[in-house]
């Protein structure tokens, strides 16, 4: 703690440097006249302070004010030092100088467009490939379910009542076949949804495990080999496709112009191709529905061009993947 000094010392110092107000000055002068000791003390202080007058600071640089203002300007606008000290409207008010100039803005916009041009497509392609890979993984899950089902059912694939003459376009028995795999807990409902089909959604549990539910298109992104009856023992047909992305010819539950769409890919994956699961379990990404050296189109029954919904494949090895 600082030692307490008599208040008179403050008064003497203030008097010596001439900063006492009129009333205090008169009062102190009266006390000085009455107390010679106080006068001695004042003279000592004056004798000490008087030489300080010789201690003059040198004149500051002539452009000190401009230097200060330039320094501030440089700090605020590092690459825009202008001839003037401060910009008009400097501060926070109206007329404030823009943070960046027009040429800088244009350059910045060009950079942004460049990076968008370079990175956005690659990001978009990464997402596309990731979705395609997830779709392939779904087919692996479906194959696993089919295989387990077949092992438990004398080598036969699930069949929800499909037989010759049943209209697969109206009743969607092939989707019902896939639904069986969900009902018996061999495939999860989300494995039936291709991530490239934003219009599809995972089947809710109350429908997924109910035999009475309708296998709605939106819950199944995949089509299955059309079956005109129980299909068992595929050992001799291992190279036949059994499940794939949805057939574009019958998208939406109706027949589209087969002639024009004959070579079309599924609507998923931006129309660039489709994932196909074969009876032996292998999956292929194909960029055309026409497979193999025989030129079989997996969307059609042989070369049939007109469909009502009751058509079946023309041979045991004829792939005909329908809803």
């Amino acid at each position, binding site marked *: 703690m600082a030692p307490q000094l008599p208040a008179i010392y403050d008064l003497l110092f203030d008097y010596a440097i001439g900063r006492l107000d009129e009333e205090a000055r008169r009062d102190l002068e009266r006390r000085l006249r009455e107390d010679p000791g106080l006068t001695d003390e004042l003279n000592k202080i004056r004798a000490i302070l008087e030489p300080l007058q010789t201690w003059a600071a040198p004149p500051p640089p002539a452009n*000190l004010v401009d*230097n200060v203002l330039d320094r501030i300007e440089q700090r605020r606008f590092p690459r825009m030092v202008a001839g003037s000290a*401060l910009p008009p409207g400097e501060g926070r008010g109206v007329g404030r100088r823009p943070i960046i100039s027009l040429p800088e803005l244009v350059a910045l916009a060009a950079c942004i467009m460049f990076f968008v041009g370079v990175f956005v497509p690659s990001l978009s392609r990464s997402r596309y490939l990731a979705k395609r890979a997830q779709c392939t993984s779904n087919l692996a899950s479906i194959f696993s379910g089919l295989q387990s089902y077949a092992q438990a059912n004398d080598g036969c694939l699930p069949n929800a009542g499909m037989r010759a003459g049943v209209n697969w376009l109206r009743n969607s028995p092939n989707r019902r076949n896939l639904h069986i795999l969900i009902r018996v807990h061999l495939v999860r409902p989300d494995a039936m949804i291709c991530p490239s089909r934003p219009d599809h959604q995972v089947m809710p549990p109350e429908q997924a495990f109910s035999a009475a539910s309708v296998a709605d298109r939106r819950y199944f992104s995949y089509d299955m080999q059309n079956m005109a009856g129980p299909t068992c023992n595929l050992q001799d047909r291992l190279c036949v496709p059994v499940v794939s992305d949805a057939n574009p010819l019958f998208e939406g539950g109706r027949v589209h112009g087969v002639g024009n769409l004959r070579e079309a890919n599924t609507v998923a994956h931006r129309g660039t191709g489709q994932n196909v699961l074969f009876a032996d379990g292998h999956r292929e990404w194909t960029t055309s529905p026409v497979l193999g050296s025989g030129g079989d189109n997996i969307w059609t029954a042989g070369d049939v061009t007109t469909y009502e919904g009751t058509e079946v494949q023309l041979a045991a090895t004829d792939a005909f993947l329908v809803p």
Partner: protein
Amino acid sequence: MSRRTDEQLLADHIRGDPEAFRLIVTRHSRELYDFVFRFTRSSAAADDVVQESFLQVHVSADRFDLSRRFKPWLFTIGANKARDWLRARSRQREVALDAKIAGDDDAGQTFLDLLADQAHAPGQQMDVEEKRRAVRRGIDRLPPALCEALVLAYFHQFTYKEMAEILDIPLGTVKSRLHAAVGAFGRALRHEQKKGQNLSD
């Protein structure tokens, strides 16, 4: 039109008046320069610290309580930056021109003595010059805290309350520090004057 106060100028600057800040700098840069020079004894430091101090004011203006006085705040910033400069210099261990080249002998030669410009002035001017040197050396003997208090009170006439604010110390400490500064400077001055007499004898 009446002269705007410092606080009014700062408020105008915050509102976007482009001339207000220039007026503040014009009004106070010289006095702040003098203070920093006396504290650091360096023109270059004074120039730099003044620029840095006003830059700090500019950056922090909107956080300043406009009900307070501006000048003590400015000098607080200046004093802090000057102390920073002194600390940095002490780390660099610069050698003053009037430091002794070798030994502690009071009569030892200084770097200043080696400079070529040693033109002798007439007798009276020599006395003034000797006095000035004695003051300068007496000041050099003061600890920075005492020197700071003496400069703020004597040259800049800050009140004790304002000095307490600038130095960030209690009012009682300001008074005792100033008292100590005057006493220490008196003793240092007498020592320097006695040394000068011995040399002339």
